[in-house]
């Protein structure tokens, strides 16, 4: 009864989930970005990696040259130089310049990430030991509230049943948001610090009890995106995933209507701890 009512609104979403483009899980690198911020982070990381690799090859090229050539066993005789102010200055100044080159794009991204103004939709996410509570504060769907907790059955965790494809990354009621809209997320927590993280959005924000911190994202395409709680929060820290369904504007409106139509769901959510 309550249980059925509670899940009613989600059935539609979950049933259609496989229809979305499900990204292959990332293995070697940052998951393919779905927001402009995540894309910038991805590119920043690639840039940094390349610069570091270059310096690395340079420095260790020299070192290994010395290691192989300037060996006593190959008859090398030690030189006696041990000081040169010019090179010291050079290898202080050049890294500074390289760092400036890295800092410039990073600064732009920082400023953009911090700009949470003018959202289309504001959602409050509250961390509980060990689940997330969502609260649509402003925009279409205002007033919808629900809790979202791990859906993976205990048996899979304990090895008594085969593990599903989205093992540990699935929840009973995912967060649903419209595509292409600026979503501002307000984070807080009820007990200890948690952290709300969706890698594909380039969003990670600690949820601090007693404080509200915010972040934002604008998903470029529809799909199911998964993340985790990213701050040690006690026993089940590893078991409080984040699952976000990005849907088209029409489907979003339909979902909102369904939520409104399922009074038990709302009544139930209203009882959720604040």
């Amino acid at each position: 009864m309550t249980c059925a009512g509670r899940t009613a609104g989600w059935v539609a979403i979950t049933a259609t989930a496989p229809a979305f483009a499900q990204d292959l899980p990332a293995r070697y690198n940052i998951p393919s970005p779905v927001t402009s911020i995540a894309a910038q982070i991805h590119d920043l990381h690639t840039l940094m990696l390349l610069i570091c690799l270059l310096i690395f090859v340079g420095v260790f090229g020299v070192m290994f040259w010395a290691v192989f050539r300037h060996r006593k066993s190959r008859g090398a005789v030690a030189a006696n130089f041990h000081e040169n102010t010019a090179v010291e200055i050079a290898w202080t100044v050049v890294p500074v310049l390289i760092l400036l080159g890295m800092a410039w794009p990073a600064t732009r991204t920082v400023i953009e990430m911090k700009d949470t103004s003018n959202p289309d939709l504001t959602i409050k996410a509250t961390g509980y030991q060990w689940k997330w509570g969502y609260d649509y504060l402003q925009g279409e769907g205002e007033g919808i509230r629900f809790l979202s907790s791990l859906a993976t059955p205990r048996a899979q965790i304990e090895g008594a049943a085969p593990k599903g494809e989205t093992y540990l990354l699935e929840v009973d009621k995912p967060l649903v948001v419209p595509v292409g809209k600026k979503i501002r997320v307000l984070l807080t927590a009820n007990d200890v610090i948690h952290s709300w993280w969706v890698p594909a959005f380039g969003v990670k924000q600690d949820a601090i009890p007693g404080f509200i911190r915010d972040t934002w994202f604008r998903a470029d395409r529809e799909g199911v995106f998964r993340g985790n709680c990213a701050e040690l929060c006690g026993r089940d820290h590893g078991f409080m995933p984040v699952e976000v369904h990005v849907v088209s504007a029409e489907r979003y409106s339909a979902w909102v209507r369904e939520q409104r139509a399922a009074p038990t769901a709302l009544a139930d959510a209203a009882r959720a701890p604040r």
Partner: protein
Amino acid sequence: MAAAPHDLLHAPHAGPSGLMRWLTTTNHKDIGTMYLVFSFVMFLSGGVMALTIRAELFQPGLQVVQPEFFNQLTTMHGLVMVFGAIMPAFVGFANWQIPLMIGASDMAFARMNNWSFWLLPPAAILLLASFFVPGGATAAGWTLYAPLSVQMGMGMDLAIFALHILGVSSIMGAINIVVTVLNMRAPGMTLMKMPLFCWTWLITAYLLIAVMPVLAGAVTMILTDRHFGTHFFNAAGGGDPVMYQHIFWFFGHPEVYIMILPAFGIISQIIPAFARKPLFGYASMVYATASIAILSFAVWAHHMFATGMPAAGQLFFMYATMLIAVPTGVKVFNWVATMWRGAMTFEAPMLFATGFIFVFTIGGFTGLICAIAPIDIQVQDTYYVVAHFHYVLVAGSLFALFAGAYYWLPKWTGHMPSEALGKLHFWCSIVFFNITFFPMHFLGLAGMPRRIPDYALQFADFNALASVGAFGFGLSQLIFLAVVIKCIRGGERAAARAWEGAEGLEWTVPSPAPHHTFEEAPLVR
């Protein structure tokens, strides 16, 4: 030599023997040895915890331990390794080597030196005993973030008192080192002639004196929040959980340099010795070390990018953190320049030193990548960070400790360490180290959080690989134990100057170094 009137000065000669010798000793060499043995025991304990973690993470699902205990293991592994293994090991080196290197008869406060050491076992007992109290050990991570740490059971209190005691020990040890270096140098040993190891330790000691009391303050606030109703870290009372993080990392970031600067010192002794060429850029090495130490007080919030600081804060801490790459780079470049056109040989100390530069730099680069705030938002609290800090702590601090141990073992034991075993230890360590920790970069980037006992399926392969590597790495460390035991028991006799290119006062005294050295100060020209 000395005549009757100096009897009192020679009192140490008539010390007790057996166990009482070790309990009461005021000799820097005895105390150094005890520090080293203690830290190795703690390394093994922390290592066993790490292997249990890796066993659980070998495959998805819960197999070996329960989540609550897993968190205890992670926390205690971090605390034991940082405060029990790495820090005391460097103090052990300082005890053995600083008086020998500056031509002093002992540490400035020989009796307090003993106390600094003997405070460690009680702290270790409190820490390890906490596994057995109701509720178990603290499981709040080695960073002990409030309010999670306020929720913990009695194990947390034991950890707090253990940290207090460790702090007292570190502060006394640091004051001892500062005073020894400033006041006990042999005539002619000016500061700018001092071996670099002494310089790095002098600067490290200042860091210790400045930040250990801050850690004591932070955990004291947790203690009063836990038991006396204060609201330091509770917003309801006007406090702020994030305030804990600021205070902790004001300690915590300098702390990581406390664990690397002496390592830089050891490497700076070894590279010139085996390149048979003086250290390149001595003065700039000193300035670089000092710059790192000073900068380390202005970067702490790079551990807190995800807490949601204002943009100005993020930018400031990002820039300041990036700057540290400059003096660290100066060090790396100077080491390479020292090797350039040397006449190098690669005995075990040099192997570990070269390996250190190579692998530590990887860790430094990933640190720099973490320093870029937007990237850190993505990788913070993932295995990417775990990879970063094991590259700098294991392949950095720990490898430098091994390098130093191989380098000075002849001076300590009078025998040369087994070359074959030393080389085997190095190659096993560096290979297994990379098998263990390199895949963690991929795991972190792909989105695996840290401090979790179970994970999503796409992370399975790399975790299995890392676990295999960890067991290999752990087993490889038994080779080191074998080398040390063999070296104490016997082996090729070491000359006073055990290595051809070694320079410095410690190589002018016989091997093994007699119980008392430099009772008459040498003159340094």
